[in-house]
């Protein structure tokens, strides 16, 4: 990316951040429409994260609704100086998901996830086997490793953003993002290796 394009992207990001800040301020004052705009902006991303984590679209949809309703209730206590708003939502989504898993067992297949169609049956089978293995190996990891893998490699967040979401220092996240793939690889090898 050129320096000019990087600068333009940074300026656009600044603009978006200020717009979010303004919407949050209005929502803090009880403006439901402003919170509706925040819902429009962040709901798809939070939903995507939840689908990956709970592996059931309907359940993810329900949790996402609960997250945003809780966000509406709690936003008067939200402070700009603390966690960025996006990270604040992620934290609520994570906590809500943990609550969900406390009362139900996680599913172990890709029910509800729209797996892209493959043209060849063998390839489809191989892909499904690989995906299943990765998902099973993921389920055997610690929660920290799971969260870092999903946020870093599926949601494509930076170490800084993940630190904000998890409430950890960036240097800690860097350590986790190195050890999480190592742990995943160990689990895969214990399960017989990649197909």
């Amino acid at each position: 990316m050129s320096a000019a394009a990087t600068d333009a992207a940074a300026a656009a990001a600044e603009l978006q951040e200020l717009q979010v800040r303004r919407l949050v301020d209005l929502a803090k004052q009880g403006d439901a429409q402003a919170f509706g705009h925040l819902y429009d902006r962040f709901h798809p991303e939070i939903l995507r994260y939840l689908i990956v984590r709970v592996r059931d679209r309907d359940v993810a949809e329900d949790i996402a609704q609960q997250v945003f309703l809780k966000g509406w209730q709690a936003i008067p206590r939200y402070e700009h100086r603390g966690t960025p708003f996006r990270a604040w939502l992620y934290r609520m989504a994570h906590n809500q998901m943990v609550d969900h898993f406390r009362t139900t067992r996680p599913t172990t297949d890709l029910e509800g996830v729209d797996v892209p169609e493959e043209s060849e049956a063998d390839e489809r089978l191989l892909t499904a086997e690989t995906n299943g293995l990765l998902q099973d190996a993921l389920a055997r990891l610690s929660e920290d490793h799971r969260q870092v893998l999903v946020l870093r490699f599926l949601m494509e967040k930076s170490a800084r953003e993940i630190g904000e979401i998890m409430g950890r220092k960036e240097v800690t996240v860097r350590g986790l993002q190195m050890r999480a793939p190592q742990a995943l690889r160990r689990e895969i090898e214990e399960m017989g290796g990649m197909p």
Partner: protein
Amino acid sequence: MSQDAARGRLALEEVVDLCLDDILMEVASIEDCLDRYPEHREALEPIPRTAMAFSELPMAAATTDPARRVTFMTALQETPQDARRRRLPSMGLPAGGGTWAGLWRGALLGVPAAALALVALLVVSTSNPGVASAATLTVFAGQVEQQVDDEWILAIDGASMPEGTILRTGSASRALVTFPDGSTATVDASTEVTLRRIAVGSTRTIEIDQASGRMWNDVVPVGSGDSYVVQTPHALISAHGTVFETFVDGVTAVRADAGLVRLSARGESVEVGPGQQATATVDSLVAATQATVTAQISVDAPAVAYLAAADGAATGALSTGVVFRQLPGVSTDNAGSDGNGQRFTLGDVSPGRYSLVVERISEGEGEVVIDTPAGRIVMPVPAGSGLSSVQVDVVEEDGERTVRAVEPEVRTVERDDTPGVRISEAARSRPGIDVAALAAARRADDPTTTAATVATP
């Protein structure tokens, strides 16, 4: 674990982070990364390979179901919000310690605005050590108001303005906001701004929301990690250490007088360079064009000078070395007609009478030169030490602005006869000119050896 071992482990974590960034952004392959860090190849190789295999997991499409949104908005209307934290939102008092905040709030709401501002300053200045989060207000003319608990109250000259403060000026008023780093924003008549964020510590973040009117920003050069941003209803303006004007009235117009400004709107952005202007509306972004210069006033003399309006707002330099730019539409630099001295560039400056005050820093001949489209006026600076002054009028004729000298000469004056300059403490600490070096260079009678410069962003 030895220190070297600890450094080695950290180095690998750093390398992994750099590699993953590049691979995820598709600017490098796994092989590229392994080649780049051969000393880490063995330890590094399995990490990105496993990570990239994981990143190939299918991701569900996650668009918002319109029916679910309707359900959500209905539920929202029926869901009460939690109680707000007890704090003083409009004064920006920190929430730390609800009990204390509550006590402050109860105690403060009944006291005059001046006391309110003073206590806000004390609380803010002690709440976050190392980070200054309040500006200082200087009222030049008329009444300036600040919003407290949704009501407009008179803002006090010299008061501290914590972040979150909303200010507005009347149709005949003007004020100056001085930030902790010495950057200033002149808030012209009929202008409303919110000091959205002020955080000056090891880095600087200053964010201003400008709802209407005109603001003249003089920004101390922005370093890595710093930002000075003005948000308007139409655009975002980012400064990199510069002097620029923002004007909001149905559109957002930006004019840069020094340095670079970036105007961003609707996903596009334009760079506005010195002497250029650009405009953003709700549906368009007009590229930078050359701005009109009304006049240039050069002080080609061993002196420093400032140009002051009747209300005390001024632009120029003092013999102490302090440089200030408070007058909207007037910038200053050290590029006089002989390559030295001091020059004032007058752009979209308000009509009225202004005093040019010249203070000698050493003996020697000199002159004041006023260049306008109508012609050039040259007036000698009086010999001897001390102060001299000449008054000029900015007038508007047939839609064009021009500058005229009220008197035909620059006259010697006493200090009491000159308009004073009001500079907040923070602005005195920003980089200025080395007057001693300037005087020494002048005494050597060799303009090319002049070591001092007026600080230009």
